């Protein structure tokens, strides 16, 4: 009972609260509190995720598993960024310390002008942005090696892709001022019709799945027991 019925009961209760609140405005105040609970639980889930990352990598280092040296980089990055935003501010508040600075930067806190913010801008941002930047090169190699036009469907896909790619950049207009107009038409008519069908289909599927959870029919999120 405790393993399955209560979680499902909670899901049904919370779910209908959200739906009821939309159709019956008088249920207004209650809804916000329930949503507040969801916000806190999601945050707890993130802390759980980070704890999991620490656990896995600490194990990797202690057992000298493959690539354990790299896990040290991970742990150092995690501990520095985590410490600056959680432990240090608590200690600083508890001790009511003055301005703890490292050079011109404030050690405590995460907003502009802090060490945390500088590490974010000069280490996290470039790493993340360049990771995505690699995709430009991969897309080029994929275009050359994994884009085989072997059917009418693939030909239509290729034609639409080429017209859109040329029409969306100034060069398209240079070649012939009709190309950008053709691109606008493709984007606003045939492409839109197919995307709208997908939207409607996804909405029906999503509503049905949501309703099954609200009616306690859908239990998969618990996994079979």
């Amino acid at each position: 009972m405790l393993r399955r019925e209560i979680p499902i009961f909670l899901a049904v209760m919370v779910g209908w609260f959200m739906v009821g609140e939309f159709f019956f405005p008088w249920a207004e105040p209650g809804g916000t509190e329930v949503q507040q609970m969801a916000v806190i639980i999601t945050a707890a889930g993130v802390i759980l995720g980070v704890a999991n990352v620490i656990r896995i990598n600490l194990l990797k280092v202690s057992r000298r598993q493959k690539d354990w040296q790299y896990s040290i980089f991970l742990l150092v990055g995690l501990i520095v960024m985590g410490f600056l935003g959680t432990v240090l501010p608590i200690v600083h508040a508890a001790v009511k310390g003055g301005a703890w600075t490292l050079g011109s930067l404030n050690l405590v806190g995460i907003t502009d002008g802090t060490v945390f913010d500088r590490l974010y801008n000069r280490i996290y941002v470039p790493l993340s942005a360049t990771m995505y930047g690699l995709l430009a090169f991969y897309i080029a190699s994929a275009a050359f090696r994994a884009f085989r036009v072997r059917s009418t469907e693939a030909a239509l896909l290729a034609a639409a892709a080429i017209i859109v790619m040329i029409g969306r950049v100034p060069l398209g207009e240079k070649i012939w001022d009709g190309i950008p107009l053709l691109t606008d038409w493709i984007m606003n008519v045939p492409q839109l019709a197919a995307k709208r069908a997908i939207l409607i289909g996804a909405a029906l599927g999503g509503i049905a799945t949501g309703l099954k959870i609200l009616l306690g029919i859908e239990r998969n999120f618990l996994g079979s027991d």
Partner: protein
Amino acid sequence: MSLTQRIEALDRRWIFLLMLFSMSFPLIVHIRLPVRTSPEARGFYESIEALHAGDVVYLASDYDPGGKAELEPMLLAVLDHLFRKDVKIVGATLWPAGSPLLERAYKTVAPKYNKTYGVDYVHLGFKEGKENVMVQLGKSIREVFPVDYYGTKLDSLPLMHSGFNGNPIDKLGDTKLLVNISIGYPGTKEWVQQVRGRFQMKMISGCAAVSAPEYFPYVQSGQLSGLLGGLAGAAEYEQLIGRPGWGVTGMAAQSLSHVTIVLLILVGNFVYFWNRRKGAARS
């Protein structure tokens, strides 16, 4: 091995070099191309142009470093346009890594129009909860953001205290326009689904080029009054507000790179089929 077979088996690092050249050459040689305005970008521009001094917009800056390249030019252009029209901004983000980016954008543009924090613009920071937070914001901003990004109580910020023609800004409905800069989930789609219709908000969105095609149905149905798609959208908007920035500069490199990709697709297929036919003829 015939020439075409050697091409087909080309080491992909040559393709990387080709792309590197296509992207770098126009940047270094300063080629500048005029940008044509698409209908949905004009809708974005006109929605802000229709605002008056003193109006308040809610800025949902939902992106992180991964989307900085496409969306930061849009955000800077939007802030420039809004501040120039003396429109006040309540900004926040649903992406954990989004707050510092919004803060930096504010710090870049606000001084140019000597706008002061708390009076002309506010940064509420990040809140986890995705769709939950959106619906809550429609009902009570203070419930979601008890304090702003810097830990100050909302009521001690003049904009939040009396920004809605004299009385406090309580909920999304108290703002004139929802401006959303979006890289993924949660983003434009969720704002349209959860907030646009439910709280009758006028909404415009700037999004990564990847998700732009999916949002065209929302433009045609009127749920989105304007849409900027990727760097091309940023360039169009920059040109419309007469402030050409990185968007316009990047367009020449974007153009040459697109041509390279198109050629790669065509050559890739030509070589593939040529070898198949040659191979079939020989065996």
